[in-house]
């Protein structure tokens, strides 16, 4: 028996059908077409599937699609404002904070959630806030620099 789910995804109203035991990650990818949300593990260990659910950062692989009923979802697809990239996206590009880029959507969402709570984080705070997101390519150096640079720019704005 499938369930019908209504949610607001990146500001738009969506209606999708999913199985009761289907993860929100699978529903977003396979039913809604938001393939920017990545699966690296499916067990909550890599953060590639990070989204915000009513503003809270979650691993979408640990949430059921049915739980999204009536809630607000933000994914990487909704980060830029039209053709204007979010400062985090710009800084990730400028600092080469991505190599393969598969971890990037998760990092961007997690970093955005951090900066909304703490606009002026220290390097250590950035490192701990992003410790749930795995990146195997970069060694994190350029990711941390990009987040700090974006924070700085956003404080000025």
């Amino acid at each position, binding site marked *: 028996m499938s369930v019908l789910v209504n949610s607001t995804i990146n500001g738009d109203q969506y209606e999708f059908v999913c199985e009761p035991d289907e993860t929100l990650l699978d529903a977003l990818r396979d039913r809604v077409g938001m*393939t920017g949300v990545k699966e690296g593990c499916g067990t909550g260990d890599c953060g590639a599937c990070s989204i915000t659910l009513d503003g809270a950062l979650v691993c979408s692989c640990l949430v059921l699609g049915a739980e999204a009923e009536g809630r607000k979802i933000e994914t990487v697809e909704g980060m830029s404002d039209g053709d204007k990239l979010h400062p985090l996206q710009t800084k990730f590009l400028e600092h080469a904070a991505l190599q393969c880029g598969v971890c990037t959507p998760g990092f961007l969402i997690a970093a955005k959630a951090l900066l909304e709570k703490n606009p002026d984080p220290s390097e250590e705070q950035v490192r701990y806030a992003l410790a749930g997101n795995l990146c195997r*390519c970069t060694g994190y*150096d350029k990711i941390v620099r990009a987040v700090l640079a974006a924070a700085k720019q956003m404080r000025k704005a």
Partner: protein
Amino acid sequence: MGIDTPMKDRVFKSVGTRPTRPDGIDKVTGRARYGADFNMPGQLHGSILRSPHAHASIKSIDTTKAEKLKGVKAVVTSKDFKTKGITDPDLLDIIDNCMASKTAYYDGHAVAAVAAVDAKTARAALKLIKVVYKKLKHVTDVDEAMSPGAPLINKKCFTQGVEPAPTKASNIAVRSEFGHGNVSEGFQQADIVIKRTYKTGQSHQGYIEPHACVASISPDGSGEMWVCTQGHFVFRQQCAEILGLDAAKLRVTSSEIGGGFGGKTHLWLEPVALLLSRKANRPVKLVMSREDVFRASGPTSTTSIDVKMGVTKDGVITAAEAELRYASGPYAGAWASYGAMTSFACYDLKNVKTVGLDILVNRPKTTAYRAPSAPMAAFAVESMIDELADRIDMDAIDLRIKNAAKEGTRSSYGPVYGPIGIGATLDAAKKHPHMKAPLGPNQGRGMACGFWFNFGGQSCTDLNISPDGTATLTFGTIDVGGARASMSLVVAEELGIPYDKVKAVIADTGSLGHNEMTDGSRGTFASSMSAIRSCRLAIDDMRQRAATMWDIDLDDVTWENGHAHAGGSSGSNHAPLSIADIAARAHKTGGPIAGHAQIVADGAGVSFATHICDIEVDPDTGQTRVVRYTVIQDAGKAVHPTYVEGQFQGGAAQGIGWALNEEYIYGKDGRLENPGFLDYRIPVCSDLPMIDTQILEIPNPNHPYGIRGVGETSIVPPLAAIGNAVSNATHVRMTQVPMSAPRILSAIHANKDSD
């Protein structure tokens, strides 16, 4: 400039700058499509059944119930692979690894696969497949596998590389030997001789994107595949052979790739997807779970290495010897030979001998992992160099400098070196402020060197000039971390046009000739060499067009800064023509302007690195913290320095994980106990400091711009650098990787007990 003019004091305009990568926006907005992000109309979902046993013979497989399940469209087992006529033993191993035939060789070995209308049905069908196994004795430890009573993994395994060929089967698959001089004489000249055994755990490449593909075969024998791979041309070739297809009719498109590090150079599920598709006559999508990735795809070797080295009191290494035992999984490999070749490659040695042994064990098939086999050998040798220095009371860096290989040195694996960077990286390390920075309590500093060959090989590229004068480069190696940016820079440089007027496109296998893998750090080296050639052919063509437009002799047309210039007596009063000017008239001068190049890139140019690190060890718990880390490496010429730094940092971080934490843990039953990121813990952001980098540029004389590969060497030194740092912090010599907290603690305790 001629077609192959090598680099000489060239001043670069575009190469060496740091523009934003052209594929970047797609990757920060979620638009980029990776392996699992693609679907074909009418596609089915595949799922693979895997052996729960470490070693078992497969008595029977009954798939009838699964086939009858509603929604199941195809089931395949090894019987569906037609191996008749295939003689290449490596290909036969690939097939057997993709689908076990008579024996399941490791926990996770595929035994059957299903394609169904949805993933849920496919998984349900797997439960209906009945496999009767007969459990066999297993062995997962590399030294145990060599011991006399060990279970024999392959009864037909007679050690290769031994004369005369052995008549008794064993788990030693391949023996290789390298070296020169006479080591026993060398040891006699030494004042100090040390012998030790080192061990390293089995690590996984740990790419964040699991393997994925969508395959489609039509009844007419043509096919298509979308796949995350490091080499779609090689995948096409191998899949075509396995399936009995014409290579030209199988069109393989490489998706964006979410990391590979060697692990995506190998076929794991692609032939299975193709077979399922052929049987079901529908496209089939197959995606590995993370658990499958760990259990059944590409880890590196676990190793056990004996090293013996001798040194005089004034610091001359007189002889060096090593036996390197590398687990290769259940199939023969060349992994130990890479270890044997690289182990002493940093040094100028009169007497050296290395023996590599590839050992069969009940673990997944070993696959390349970034500078494959070199980090373990470097761990052993670089640990011992520190110990030797300590014994003769010499600074460890000075001992290395004194014995470093240089231009003209005969390497331990044979060839004589051209201009190389080991000495330069050591000098830079010695001068680096990191070396003089004070250490805190319980902190130790370590350093180590590393070497990697770098590969060349076949590449080809197309350069097409559009009517508006912009350029498209079509190339055949994948972009795993900035390749499109680097290739665009090279084309911009060569044509003399701005970077943003170049579009670099990765071709599918139907659009370009064969290209080898992106492996062995060859991507930028080989594809840029071909791209430069393509550009120079196009420039020749454009000179000809300019001559036609001006009606002067070709010899009177020169090319400078992206323009044709009229020279000589015939044309001195013509204004220069830009590429756009020439392209606009192409329809009158011979049609579209293009340059196609195909090469076998020789002379990849070896690469060396020196790393320095500071580690803090909690003496009560054995817990470690990486305090500071510096990478110094020769890049030949850094095309895009930011991405070169990224390669240095990424390799170092992987090495740090391997050194301190990462390891396959097998239970007594031979089952993998940590097939997930929670228990196979790779470094997270809060584990690491910033990773400082210093790029040296010692041009590779064999490349027109001096480029060397940069992707791999950075993973070679960390194991030893960290081992040396931990040893210096604890005053206990570490000989086993990973240096996990309990292991360090027990080493400290054992040392106290023996005091």
